[in-house]
């Protein structure tokens, strides 16, 4: 009897095991069948920034990796086309299409400052809504997995939030980016040069990450000046003073913010009295003074020219975006390039501060996507934030922002700029500026005025700042974005 009972209980266990394995093998197949797009072929379109590696990496990974993932896990075929548009015309390209309610571009790699301009007319999907409620009209469930834990709050406010200061989310980070300092160690850390510099200036040129970390901008200016030797076709630093898109502003703001100035008051959207301050004027003067250490024609220098100057050995250092690390670090210079935090500034009260500009771009979803394309876009984003995808993105040269990836012990060593990137992607070290719907208008205005000052067309920094602040205040006020009207003095504001 006991034997029979033992045998029957063994049989029951075996049967249960078989049943369990059967269930386990059927569940994935069921879930594959359950995907509403299983068996279909979908063509997706991504609009991204032309000539910008992180953008093309996103599209490339979509075709290289997501296509297989979707086939395996969801059972549908998908292909991605990638349309490129330069920084300065990406928004116009997107706006022209979205304004007509078109789904020409299903996923857009926008610049962070465009969030307001894309969200206000209802052209992109409210990610908050997608996370909490899904898109019921399109049969898409809530997506709590897209509620990301990012490495720092500055990444959230930069790539996700509009209006500034709110908690509303409209984008998801595609590429994180910050400004870092690229150093040619073969030039800067040459023992003879270091000795000569120390003898002349009384302090040593930094040679480690930690030493660069404590370097001040005053000291950096001395280093840049030391290596500015036009007769040898060598200059101290490459920056970006070009009028194109936001290049000049992005290099000027770190001077303002680090010295204690602000671009605006996001709570009241006030410009006048915030932007046009003596401390910001001092920052502008300082930023212009840096032109003494840059290659000739630095006023036309954008990202590409900066890369060229650095890789051709025409500059000793370069303040550049971490996102172009792959272009800055070539096979030829790999062993002689150090990537460190950019210099900190000493404020009037003696404290030090280092607040540089945030770069990088968010993914945004076209609100006019039909149900099938929206579903694929959501699947794609869920895949994009899988740990293994984020790690692969970093290995290919991208800059993830998800906390888990950046906190991975291997992350710092994946790329030579990763340590500096992570160091700068902190709340008190990097900052973005207005995500307003009138971003383009406000930006064009200040790019023109600031570069005119840099070129010597105007020479009174405070008057230039006052003019820009007044005009921007007027734009915000005219468009109902602020209740603060430009003061009467603005009528006489004129750059000098």
């Amino acid at each position, binding site marked *: 009897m006991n034997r029979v009972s033992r045998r029957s209980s063994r049989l029951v266990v075996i049967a249960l095991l078989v049943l369990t394995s059967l269930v386990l093998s059927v569940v994935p197949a069921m879930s594959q069948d359950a995907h509403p797009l299983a068996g279909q072929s979908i063509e997706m379109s991504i609009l991204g920034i032309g000539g910008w590696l992180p953008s093309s990496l996103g599209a490339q990974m979509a075709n290289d990796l997501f296509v297989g993932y979707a086939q395996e896990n969801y059972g549908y075929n998908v292909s991605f086309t990638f349309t490129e548009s330069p920084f300065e015309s990406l*928004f*116009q390209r997107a*706006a022209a299409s979205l*304004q007509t309610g078109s789904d020409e571009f299903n996923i857009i790699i926008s610049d962070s400052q465009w969030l307001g*301009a894309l969200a*206000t*007319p*209802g052209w992109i999907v409210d990610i908050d809504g997608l996370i909490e409620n899904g898109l019921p009209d399109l049969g898409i469930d809530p997506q709590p997995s897209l509620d990301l834990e990012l490495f720092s709050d500055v990444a959230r406010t930069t790539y996700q939030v509009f209006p500034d200061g709110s908690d509303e989310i409209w984008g998801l980070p595609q590429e994180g980016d910050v400004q870092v300092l690229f150093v040619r160690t073969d030039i800067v850390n040459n023992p003879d040069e270091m000795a000569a510099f120390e003898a002349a200036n009384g302090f040593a040129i930094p040679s480690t990450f930690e030493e660069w970390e404590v370097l001040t901008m005053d000291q950096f200016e001395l280093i840049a000046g030391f290596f500015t030797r*036009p007769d040898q076709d060598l200059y101290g630093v490459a920056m970006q*003073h*070009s*009028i*194109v898109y936001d290049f*000049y502003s992005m290099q000027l703001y770190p001077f303002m913010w680090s010295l204690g100035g602000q671009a605006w008051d996001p709570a009241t959207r006030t410009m006048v009295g915030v932007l046009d301050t003596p401390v910001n004027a001092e920052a502008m003067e300082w930023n212009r003074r840096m032109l003494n250490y840059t*290659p*000739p*024609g*630095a*006023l*036309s220098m954008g990202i590409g*020219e900066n890369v*060229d*100057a650095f890789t051709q050995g*025409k500059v000793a250092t370069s303040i550049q975006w971490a996102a172009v690390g792959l272009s800055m670090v070539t096979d030829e210079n790999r062993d002689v390039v150090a990537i460190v935090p950019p210099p900190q500034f000493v404020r009037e009260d003696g404290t030090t501060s280092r607040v540089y500009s945030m770069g990088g771009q968010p993914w945004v979803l076209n609100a006019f996507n039909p149900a099938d394309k929206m579903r694929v876009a959501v699947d794609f984003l869920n895949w994009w934030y899988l740990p293994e995808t984020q790690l692969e993105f970093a290995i290919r040269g991208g800059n993830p922002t998800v906390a888990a990836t950046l906190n991975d012990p291997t992350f710092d060593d994946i790329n030579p700029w990763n340590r500096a990137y992570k160091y700068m992607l902190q709340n008190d070290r990097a900052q973005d500026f207005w995500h307003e*719907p*009138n971003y*383009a*208008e406000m930006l*064009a205005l200040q790019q*023109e*005025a600031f*570069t*005119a*000052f*840099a*070129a*010597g*067309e105007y020479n009174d920094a405070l008057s230039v700042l006052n003019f820009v602040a007044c005009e921007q205040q007027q734009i915000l006020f005219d*468009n*109902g974005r602020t209740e603060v009207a430009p003061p009467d003095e603005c009528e006489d504001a004129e750059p000098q």
Partner: protein
Amino acid sequence: MAQADLSSPARLQQAAVPAMTPLRRFLMRFNRLFDDARLLPVLLIAPVLIFFIVWNVIPTLWMIGLSFYRYQISIPDSLAFLGIDNYTDIIRDRAMWQGLSRTFIWVFFGVGIQTLLGMVLGFLFWGSKSMPGRRLALTLLFTPMIVTPVAAGLFFRLIYEPTFGILNWFTQSFFGQEVLLLQNPEVAFWAVLFVDIWMWTPFMILITLAALASVPKAEMEAAEIDRLSWFDRIRYIILPHGKYILMLGILLRTIDSFKTLDLVYLMAVPGSTTKLIAILLRESAFEALNVGWSSALAIILLLTAIAFTSIYLYILNLNSKAKAKEVAT
């Protein structure tokens, strides 16, 4: 049931004429329209007229309508009737006047230099008909005109580039002198205008050659027999015959130059020294997406261009009237 007499002559005659299908009937009627001498010109011009109405008249009317509204694409519910507020705002706008004055300087010097250079080079080519390789030289000379402004802008931006550009390499190698063109607000405008002149002088050469070809050979031979000086030949024979074509060339260049955008945009000069009116319009329309204000500015520019054209046509008419009067007396 009575059988029809299929062999009757009337029936046979009917059978010889092919059956008239509706399509055939329509085509015959349509063909007949072309026989009407009054209708024919209307029919011939109709496709162009329809194209013109659909693509020119309707958009222009639409634009005129929008110019009275506040309408910014990126701001929802921004559509509101403003009357002439956009126009008064533009007239009060300092940037608009600055842009317009820069544009007038651009047109005046640009078209002026292109015309003078074009005429001189055109005369030289006209007088060197037996020069070996003339045809090849002409073809090469016209190349800049064929290059798109975008390509020309990028091309010259690289040439002018002080760190990597060939111009600076040349001046530094041979004269030890660094040249900053686009970065210097005092010369940037002229450096960009030079590119426009480089591009469009060939057009004025072409126009000059066309004008010279319109001069009757007999009159030139007579002038040669009479040993008229070249100055007199130009004054009394060439200019009276060729000035209409030249004027047309200048008119076309003026209108085109007034609209210059791509070249200047591509050169990316710091500050506002090259901010022509078309750049302002582009910023307003495609960056700020301010459709109402941009439409009003576009209408003002359209009226300015029409004013240019009218002045030229008036001068041309004056000349033809004077000529007709001369012939009559």
